């Protein structure tokens, strides 16, 4: 079952009709509906192209949060071999919102870390919808230290609504954990590359995405606050999320102009969820290129360039 977003309603109708026709045809042999169904297919394709060639920022947020979008686990399963999950922060718990471990990427040992949102009710709850607690960031810190020590590049996959706003999370130092994770990203003497595969939610994303290279999927978003949150603060009305999404400049395209993301990875027509395999392969090629760019740099230069990159950020505004 395809999950349709609200703005995809007309598309759902056409695709539904085509499917219906074909279902009827399967039951009675005399009926030939293929021509009609194909016409509907073409209509759907045109509409899909129309919708996706001009997604508004808010619609991009919806696509970025699409439940069928490939998630961290899907990328790890497809792009890495010998994935060996490593658990725990050695202090309090293992945070299931954060996947992390060693693996091989194109045969090379790396550390891979990312937020996993889950794909059904059970796994979503298990993964806390991709919202990490301090233990998740502290696990990431530990893994980055391991990567540094054994000279393994770090790949991070960012997909989180934000850090978890919970009582325990606060008591155990959510802010300190995020701050230290960002700090660790800036310290390690190995390449660190990051891909925003869905939602880059605020500080919870920065803690992983403070990287030498940051790529974003075409319809992913990265923002200081969710459009709903921004709308409720600045517009005093959470329903103004469309306006807020517009104002925040959270799309990959705007972030590229601002120099925040280095690459945009094209998604299949209709979004990553319409061709997961193709999306994952594109992300794989991008990671390969980003790591390739960095492989000859010495530790010292890597760290120095990374710091300079962030210090220089913001010198570029959006051209009017």
């Amino acid at each position, binding site marked *: 079952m395809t999950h349709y977003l609200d703005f995809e309603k007309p598309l759902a109708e056409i695709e539904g009709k085509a499917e219906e026709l074909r279902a009827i045809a399967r039951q009675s042999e005399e009926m030939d509906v293929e021509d009609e169904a194909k016409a509907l297919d073409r209509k759907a394709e045109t509409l899909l192209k129309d919708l996706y060639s001009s997604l508004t920022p808010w619609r991009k947020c919806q696509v970025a949060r699409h439940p069928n979008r490939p998630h961290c686990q899907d990328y790890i399963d497809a792009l890495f071999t010998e994935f060996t999950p490593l658990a725990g922060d050695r202090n309090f718990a293992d945070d299931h919102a954060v996947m992390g471990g060693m693996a091989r990427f194109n045969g090379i040992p790396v550390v891979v870390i990312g937020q996993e949102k889950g794909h059904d009710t059970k796994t979503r709850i298990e993964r806390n919808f991709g919202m990490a607690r301090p233990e998740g960031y502290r696990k990431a810190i530990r893994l980055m230290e391991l990567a540094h020590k054994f000279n393994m590049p770090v790949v991070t996959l960012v997909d989180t609504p934000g850090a978890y706003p919970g009582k325990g999370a606060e008591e155990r130092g959510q*802010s300190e954990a995020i701050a230290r994770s960002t700090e660790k990203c800036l310290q390690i003497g190995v390449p660190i590359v990051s891909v925003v595969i869905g939602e880059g939610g605020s500080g919870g994303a920065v803690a992983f995405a403070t990287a030498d290279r940051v790529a974003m999927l075409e319809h992913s978003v990265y923002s200081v606050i969710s459009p709903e949150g921004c709308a409720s603060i600045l517009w005093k009305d959470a329903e103004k999320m469309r306006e807020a999404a517009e104002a925040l400049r959270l799309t990959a395209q705007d972030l590229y102009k601002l120099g925040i993301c280095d690459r945009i990875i094209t998604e299949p027509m209709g979004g990553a969820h319409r061709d997961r395999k193709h999306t994952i392969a594109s992300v794989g090629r991008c990671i390969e290129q980003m790591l390739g760019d960095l492989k000859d740099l010495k530790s010292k230069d890597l760290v120095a360039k990374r710091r300079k990159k962030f210090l220089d950020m*913001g010198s570029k505004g959006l051209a009017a």
Partner: protein
Amino acid sequence: MNWITNYVRPTINSFFSRRDTPENLWTKCESCGTMLFHRELKDNQNVCTNCGHHMAITPRERFAHLFDGGIFVEVDVPEPLADPLQFRDQKKYPDRMKAAQKKTGEKEAMLVAEGEIGRTPIVAAAQDFTFMGGSMGMYVGNAIIAGAERAVATGKPFVLFSAAGGARMQEGILSLMQMPRTTVAVQMLKEANLPYIVVLTHPTTGGVTASYAMLGDIQIAEPNALICFAGPRVIEQTIREKLPEGFQRAEYLLDHGMLDRVTPRTKLREELITIIRMLMGQPPAIVGDLPAPAAAPAEEAPAADSK
């Protein structure tokens, strides 16, 4: 150069012109309701003389109490792009900025200065909650970087007073990028082996807490300051339960191991002098009245660079 100076008086006046203050002479403590004479309140650094409640204090007032003889020199902060995103909510960002500048008499939400405390030279930065909630945008990031660079260049400790609702939404992703940017500033200090002391004041929340405000060598908070990543309201909405008394307040964080100390504002200066002199390997401070820093510097410390 310093267009701000002319505006300092109005700032202080507007602070005391709030409700229930006839002739600007009295301020009602929002905690215990006591009417406080403004001179007395000001001398006590905006701490209620009856109940010890800590009210907001502007960076300029704070520095006047902090530095020897109230003397400090501002550190220049590189000007960022104005309104980089052309942000507009119900108001335009530049209009909000103008309103905040008019209200506070300050240019932005952070003031960086150098001077001496107990004859120990330091660089200090203070965030101004009255300026758009102290929110962290490019300017605040630049201010922290400028302060850290100045501290490293002159071999001085860096003391930072935080106060912010979080990131400056009107700068979108660029405000978020101040988390890594300010973290680089903290790393500069650490690599130079210079003390970085954070004083968290009410309130310090969001991305500010999750970056430079939590990375100090020493973490001090003012009493009852709200310090958190996610605010209490957001948490209550998420977990649908009432939060315990004092949750996310300075004393609560101290109990949960997130802070070194909770120190009243009126004792801070003394405490900072003690801590900094130990960290810098200097002899104990001389107790008693000190002359204002003059041309002749104390032997163990270089004089503040006067521009």
